[in-house]
């Protein structure tokens, strides 16, 4: 018997729990030659800002042990170009699309959500709060519970679409952040974004990245991500999307056990452009092989 792979996040029905993580899957189309975009649960767009963003100078990426650093600097086409040029392709695909939002001020977040509110192709918004708050001296929204709550409340008011908040792991207590976002009206939480890291070119005596620091992703961060998902799942009632170093179906299933309702595949898309589809397929095979009728049985099923 075919296992039931469907899950629901904040009212969005997904055919399976596998989404692609923001910034690692372009606007979806880039991967259409390599996989069937209708075999995964959802597509998250590259982070969108109000105006087109240039991003950082290069080098922007560097490999690290078991991971990579990126300092793309959120280069993106901007919300209007997204709606005009990227959304039409996504409309042709029968897979929910979630828009990842990036603002430099509270108001920008609100404005972004408002502009998307009427855009049918977008099933939900995912609010990236790992952004420097330019009005408050560049302190990152996602490391201060009050600032995070304000962003969430602002977006919550601006749209009737489900609001997913993507948490930064660069905090002392992820549960405090999660609670702040939950109370401010988030419908779901996704975690984790990248850990801040750095790489140095010994011979040149310079940071490898033009931006000096960047975000660490890939298998290296999986233990941290799994821990945070587990902590938040125990403390907060919202559905959770687990992210961080997922390379295989087993990895994804571990995040479900820890309490995630769905997962996102990031860096793995670079190693294998069909990774998300393969992981979804192999999760299904694992369930079939182990006589598990419904993937939802695994959510939070960790015994400890």
């Amino acid at each position, binding site marked *: 018997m075919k296992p039931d792979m469907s899950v629901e996040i904040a009212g969005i029905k997904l055919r399976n729990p596998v989404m692609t993580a923001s*910034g690692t899957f372009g606007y979806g189309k*880039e991967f259409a*030659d390599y996989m069937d975009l209708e075999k995964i649960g959802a597509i998250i767009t590259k982070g969108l800002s109000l105006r087109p963003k*240039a991003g950082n100078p290069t080098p*922007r*990426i560097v*490999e690290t042990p*078991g991971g990579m650093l990126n300092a793309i600097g959120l280069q993106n086409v901007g919300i209007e170009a997204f709606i005009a040029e990227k959304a039409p392709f996504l409309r042709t695909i029968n897979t929910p699309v979630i828009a990842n939002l990036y603002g430099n001020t509270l108001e920008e977040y609100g404005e972004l959500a408002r502009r998307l509110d009427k855009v049918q192709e977008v099933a939900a918004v995912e609010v990236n709060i790992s952004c420097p708050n330019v009005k408050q001296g560049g302190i990152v929204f996602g490391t201060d519970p009050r600032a995070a709550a304000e962003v969430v409340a602002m977006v919550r008011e601006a749209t009737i679409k489900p609001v997913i908040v993507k948490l930064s792991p660069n905090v002392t207590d992820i549960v405090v952040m999660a609670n702040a976002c939950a109370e401010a009206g988030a419908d779901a939480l996704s975690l984790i974004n990248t850990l801040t890291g750095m790489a140095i070119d010994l011979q040149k005596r310079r940071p490898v990245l033009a931006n000096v620091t960047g975000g660490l992703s890939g298998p290296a961060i999986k233990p941290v991500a799994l821990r945070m998902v587990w902590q938040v799942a125990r403390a907060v009632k919202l559905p959770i999307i687990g992210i961080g170093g997922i390379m295989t179906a087993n990895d994804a299933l571990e995040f479900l056990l820890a309490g995630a309702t769905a997962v996102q595949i990031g860096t793995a898309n670079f*190693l294998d*452009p069909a990774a998300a589809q393969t992981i979804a397929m192999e999760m299904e095979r694992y369930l079939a092989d182990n006589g598990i009728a419904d993937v939802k049985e695994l959510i939070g099923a960790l015994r400890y």
Partner: protein
Amino acid sequence: MQYKAMVISNQEVSSGYYRLRMTAPKELAEAKPGQFVMVRVNNSIDPLLRRPFGIFDVGSFVPEYADVGRQTYLEILYKVVGKGTAMLAALHHGDHLDMLAPLGKGFAPGDAGEEKILVGGGVGLAPLYYLAKELVKNSRVHLFVGGRSREDVLCITEFERLGVETYVATDDGTLGERGLVTEVLEKQLQQGATAKTIFACGPYPMLRAVAAIAGRTRIPCQVSLEAYMACGVGACLGCVMKGRNHTEATPDYRCVCKDGPVFDYQELQWD
């Protein structure tokens, strides 16, 4: 496309330089000179990312190992510089590799009949061989090739066998003229060499010098660039270069992997 390739041969052609020939699906016969591949060196997480290489050659062969008729092969020419290329160098006939190919935009060959100039620095020569094979069908082709030392000047015989006229420069004078390949190029152009297009691949400083020569001589010029890459398909935005009109306010970044790796030199901002 994504496919599994089998290593046919993997030969050291000069100290630290290898030619790796592997099987390819027949679609790869249509790969354009200047396009590249992304190789997954192994299935471990070390190294994590794929490695990009230009297409050195594509052809067909009749395999000994099976009764399957003509098969396509694809060849890369690589230099061992770090972990990934060291692991490639350890591969043997029969080993398998996960490939993405062909990627990016190739060279625009230009009009038939007109003379062409190729400029290659070190392993930047790699994509020029496959290009030369195309160009010699309709054009006279000159190759200017530079390297640090004689071991860094590769596959000259192969080019000459195609009928390409070669000019060599090395930093230490151990082969050809002593100096930069771009100096030799410039001298030849001053001495009246004519060409309708320059095709260049090599380290950034060489390409910048070639672009400058192209600007001065007004010879059309295409350059093939390198950049750190993660995805190879235009998704991660890790590999970008500034387009000519790029400013912070009006960003114009080009992906080396998707919009390149070959660019008209005038498309880019050179710094």
